[in-house]
């Protein structure tokens, strides 16, 4: 078990280093930030001083070494545009993204599992069919366009909900959050719904498939034969057995929700990390791009690692397969 965890962690570390190299080399090799960041009318001397200050005159591999040394001490460079520490800018915006992602995931779980259960128990009923049709639509609708349509209906036509920003935030343990005030909830409602739709569709399908499979199992037939109430059979026997794969998927999908938040944040002007990334790509603010990518890749690697380890605890066959392969 320990060996597996160590091996799996080393592998994750290797991926992180490879990604950092790839991202750094790519991002630092394109475009010329000198042209963007320094006034074209500036004196030659002034230009050179600025280049030396930003460390852009040194060869790439030296820049990378400086960058890694900085990264290990938590310093991922300073934003060219805002001249603030890149990592600080990312971390400052992380709570907004995490709040959005958590809200979206909660919506997806709280609606997706009951709806999927219903569709699985009554696959041929009108309700079951409608749920499945809706989930196909949820897969096909492009997130950004749904976001626009939500704004169009709920902000422009009905005027019920605000269409952009986080609204007033209140401090919780020093972190600004929206969900403590009614106004914050109103700002959170549309972006969270938008981000949740895709995962909602996924969870509905997953729960439905699991339920249909579980209903055919002997333990369910046995539970029914014992004369247990329908509610008990479904809630205890069926639901508990389908929850293991669902929990795994929820874990893995959380990372993808954070990544997809980029799109939703852009549509709703939500001040999170994703919007910062898009703005940085447009202004070629490379330290921020690199910092964002490294932070999100690290989040992903940690999530994948934790899910893999949890899974190997739940299901020993996973470890055996890994050892053989």
């Amino acid at each position, binding site marked *: 078990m320990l060996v597996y965890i160590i091996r799996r962690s080393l592998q994750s570390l290797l991926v992180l280093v490879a990604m950092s190299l*790839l*991202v750094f080399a*790519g991002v630092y090799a394109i*475009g010329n930030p000198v042209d963007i960041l320094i006034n074209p009318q500036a004196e030659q001397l002034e230009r050179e001083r600025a280049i030396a200050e930003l460390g852009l005159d040194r060869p790439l591999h030296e820049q990378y070494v400086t960058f890694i040394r900085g990264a290990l001490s938590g310093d991922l460079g300073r934003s060219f545009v805002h001249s603030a520490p890149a990592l600080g800018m990312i971390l400052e915006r992380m709570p907004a993204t995490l709040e959005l992602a958590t809200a979206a995931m909660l919506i997806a779980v709280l609606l997706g599992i009951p709806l999927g259960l219903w569709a699985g128990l009554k696959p041929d009923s009108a309700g079951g069919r409608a749920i499945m049709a809706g989930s196909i639509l949820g897969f096909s609708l492009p997130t950004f366009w749904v976001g626009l349509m939500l*704004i*169009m209906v709920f902000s422009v036509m009905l005027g019920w909900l605000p269409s952009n920003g986080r609204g007033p935030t209140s401090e919780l343990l020093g972190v600004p959050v929206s969900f403590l005030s009614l106004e914050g909830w109103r700002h959170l409602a549309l972006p969270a719904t938008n981000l949740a739709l895709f995962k909602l569709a996924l969870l509905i399908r997953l729960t439905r498939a699991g339920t249909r499979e579980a209903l055919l199992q002997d333990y369910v037939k046995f539970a029914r034969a014992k004369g247990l109430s329908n509610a008990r059979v479904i809630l205890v026997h069926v639901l508990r057995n389908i929850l293991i794969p669902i929990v795994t998927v929820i874990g893995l999908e959380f990372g993808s929700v954070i990544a997809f938040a980029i799109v939703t944040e*852009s549509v709703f002007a939500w001040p999170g990390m994703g919007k910062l990334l898009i703005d940085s*790509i*447009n202004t070629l603010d490379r330290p921020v791009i690199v910092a964002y990518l490294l932070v999100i890749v690290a989040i992903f690697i940690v999530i994948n690692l934790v899910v893999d380890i949890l899974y190997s605890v739940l299901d020993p066959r996973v470890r055996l397969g890994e050892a053989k392969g």
Partner: protein
Amino acid sequence: MSAPTGMRHDRAGESPAARLAADFLANPVAAFGLVLLGCIVLLALFAPLVSPQDPYDLAQLDIVDARLPPGSTSASGGTYWLGTDDQGRDMLSAIFYGLRISLAVGAASTLLALVIGLTFGLIAAYLGGRIESLIMRIVDIQLSFPAILIALILIAVLGQGTGKVIAALVTIQWAYYARTVRGAALVERRKEYVEAARCLALPPLRIVFRHLLPNCLPPLIVVATVQVAAAIALEATLSFLGLGLPITEPSLGLLIANGYQYLLSGKYWISFFPGIALLLTIVSINLVADQLRDVLNPRLQR
């Protein structure tokens, strides 16, 4: 492909292709999807012939007609069924031209990725050993990240432009094909017809491409169909974010992005209708893919 025995219906004398077509059309929803997709492709192909105006010929645009709601009459007497954008461009024509670009980018990236993924998947399955584990490890790692994230990393690294977007889409997709082909090829490799071909001392390349490949195609076709839809959606998303195609290649995503700023003042049609076109395209492809999966899956055939 050898004709499998015990198909859904016993129709001796029909060719396998005719049987597949009949099975496919047995589901009315799928048939509808296929017809819809056919119409969309035709509209895209013949966009210059069916469009009321050439939306990118500045001589045909009249700024007086800018931002007219659907059904308005133009200064020159025509009708704008879906309204006009901020340049006075007929949205219906812009959508036909946009479909063209979206479908072309989706199809081109899928084809390229298919060839690359197919090659690596077959190499992995046929050679095995270190090369196989290297290829499959790269595939596994790549598939553990969401497509949008990989696309953004690549766009940030490569820069922007049509070629770069296609490169990003190809990089995302090849892994799906490599994994599917390898899986199918590993199963097929153990079958008797491959052994027979080996006994005949046929050259390995011939065995791989003439015997193994055709039998790996059914699952690959299904994955490719789903991936075309995914590629079109991803390109639209990137273009909407301003990181996709340049404004000289106005795909559906760019049309939607263009209408974004007018949405808040109630001028919904500039974003709404291109989105509907995108949605219909994706839904029709997904419907076709769903049915293809059932028709091509021998396990579902009685």
